[in-house]
């Protein structure tokens, strides 16, 4: 706080904005990315502040008012097959759905970047061994792999996260490896190595800064995939267990109402679609903002 009062020195006046500052400025000028970000912020805030935002208790069931239509008095978005308030369940459901979307990708980002950057920087035979091992995972379609792993590990949130992480690690590792291989052959990395610095210092200062951006962009595009896969696992009964509100699980339990209340039954799917497309549009905007002549 005290820094605000400090006079700017003439040296600082000529200091130029860093790379991330200019990326941020370009991102702010992108209406699509900003719109997507606004939607995401609303969804995340609603999920985090659910106890204050939600109009009703998401677990409170009433047998008399089951499957009410959208706009029914007291139920702004109708009620589900057990008479629970849909709006409240959608708001609370965002908590688990976002968690299942972000956490596996975050874990895979850390593990996959580690593997990929290591393989890419070391190169040679070690790279071949690591990357061909990673390729084995690509033999399975990701949905199948997630279902198979969850099936073996058993139902539950933790097991779903583990299996989704395993699905994403190879994909992120592959991107990390290819970006690192490119950066490694640049003259500035050669110059850094020629200065006699150890490999860790070269990677930390010269490789990470040029590599993490592209990997991060790729990872954000996986969040929507992760959410859909997690919803799929819940739908199959391998993820979240009832009566927890979760969009995929809600889609599953409401499928019987598809003929009587199609609009209500479609609401969880709409939320999944809205959130994942917002993540995708935002990551597209981020990539465009980062693709600048440096």
């Amino acid at each position, binding site marked *: 706080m005290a820094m605000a009062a400090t006079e700017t020195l*003439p*040296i*600082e006046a*000529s*200091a*130029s904005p*860093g*790379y991330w500052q200019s990326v941020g400025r370009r991102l702010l000028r992108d209406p699509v990315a900003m719109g997507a970000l606004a939607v995401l912020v609303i969804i995340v805030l609603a999920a985090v502040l659910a106890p204050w935002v939600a109009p009703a208790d998401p677990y409170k069931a009433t047998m008399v008012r089951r499957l009410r239509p959208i706009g029914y008095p007291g139920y702004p978005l109708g009620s589900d097959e057990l008479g629970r308030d849909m709006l409240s369940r959608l708001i609370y459901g965002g908590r688990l759905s976002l968690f299942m979307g972000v956490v596996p990708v975050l874990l895979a980002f850390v593990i996959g970047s580690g593997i990929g950057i290591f393989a890419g920087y070391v190169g040679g*035979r070690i790279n*071949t061994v690591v990357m061909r091992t990673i390729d084995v995972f690509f033999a399975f379609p990701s949905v199948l792999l997630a279902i198979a792993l969850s099936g073996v590990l058993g139902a539950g949130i933790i097991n779903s996260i583990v299996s989704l992480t395993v699905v994403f690690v190879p994909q992120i590792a592959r991107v990390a490896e290819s970006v690192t291989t490119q950066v490694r052959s*640049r*003259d*500035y990395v*050669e*110059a*850094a*190595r*020629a*200065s*006699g*610095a*150890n490999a860790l*210092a070269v990677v930390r*200062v*010269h490789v990470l*800064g*040029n590599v993490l951006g592209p990997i991060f962009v790729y990872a954000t595009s996986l969040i929507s995939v992760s959410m859909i896969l997690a919803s799929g696992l819940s739908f199959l009964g391998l993820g979240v267990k009832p009566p927890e509100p979760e969009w995929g699980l809600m889609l599953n339990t409401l499928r019987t109402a598809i003929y009587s209340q199609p609009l209500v039954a479609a609401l969880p799917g709409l939320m999944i679609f809205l959130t994942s497309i917002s993540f995708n549009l935002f990551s597209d905007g981020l990539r465009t903002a980062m693709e600048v*002549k*440096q």
Partner: protein
Amino acid sequence: MIALDPDRDRGGPGTPLLAVQSLTKHFGRKASVFARNNAVVRAVDGVDFTVRKGETLGIVGESGCGKSTTARLVMQIIKPDAGEILFDGEAVGGRALSLASYRRQVQMVFQDSYASLNPRLTVEDTIAFGPKAHGLGAKAAIARAHDLLHRVGLEPARFAGRYPHEISGGQRQRVNIARALALEPRLLILDEAVSALDKSVEAQVLNLLLDLKDEFGLTYMFISHDLNVVRFMSDRVMVMYLGKVAEIGGSDSLFEKPLHPYTAALLSSMPSMDPDKRTEEAPLAGDPPNPINPPPGCRFHTRCRFAATLCAHAEPVLTGGDDHRAACHLADPQSGHPRLAA
């Protein structure tokens, strides 16, 4: 002659700073089992030379002759297949001279001033990286960076916080020079360091390099394809052709009386400032042969106008006095080349 620092000059003034013996690098050999072709590029094929303390050795040759590979081999960025590098009389990587300590003493300035600077680092961070990696404190390293910026003619207050894309090519190359000097090297390899610059900027950077050489007591390996620049900078010149040394000698002697026909052809291709001495015809026809399958015998015989049957069979070795040697049968009175008898 400049004074050499007695503390660092271990081998004495008579020992060459760098002595390279039968340095060899073939690319494409022993590739993985998945590699399809087994073609071997003989990028550097048995090169010997020395760099004396305090001198500038110019290295010239056409594209693909092995100049840059030689530089990278000396830098130890790539490992040689064979050959020995002695630095101040000590084998690199041996007991007396570790690779880390060698790397501090030999630095390089690359041709592409932009690609050789990390786009995410400010100018001062780029220069301070090497000293920090060698254990200098962050503040001291930044102070050294500012001092070096000043010495290469960039005002630290204006340039220290800039990013590479915000400064001009000449300024970037000055930053690269400052970065190379940050470790207080004794040998500086300049690999086409001024080739990408405008002529006026090039002249400024060349003068800066000459000043820095005196100031820091440096020895240069100056690689370029521009013969005028090489002559301006170098005490001695080495001419390379297809991974081999064609001729090596004192700058004046080599430029006035070239012994190798290839050197002579290169020199006659130099644009002259004198309108009476026009370059009438291209002295060298065609491209150099493919280094994957270099011609047998003398590698230059396919383009040499003095080529005889001998040249296609016997490979000439470097002969001549210590000051000026050439790998040509014409330079060796015992070779039996028909033109010598005439």
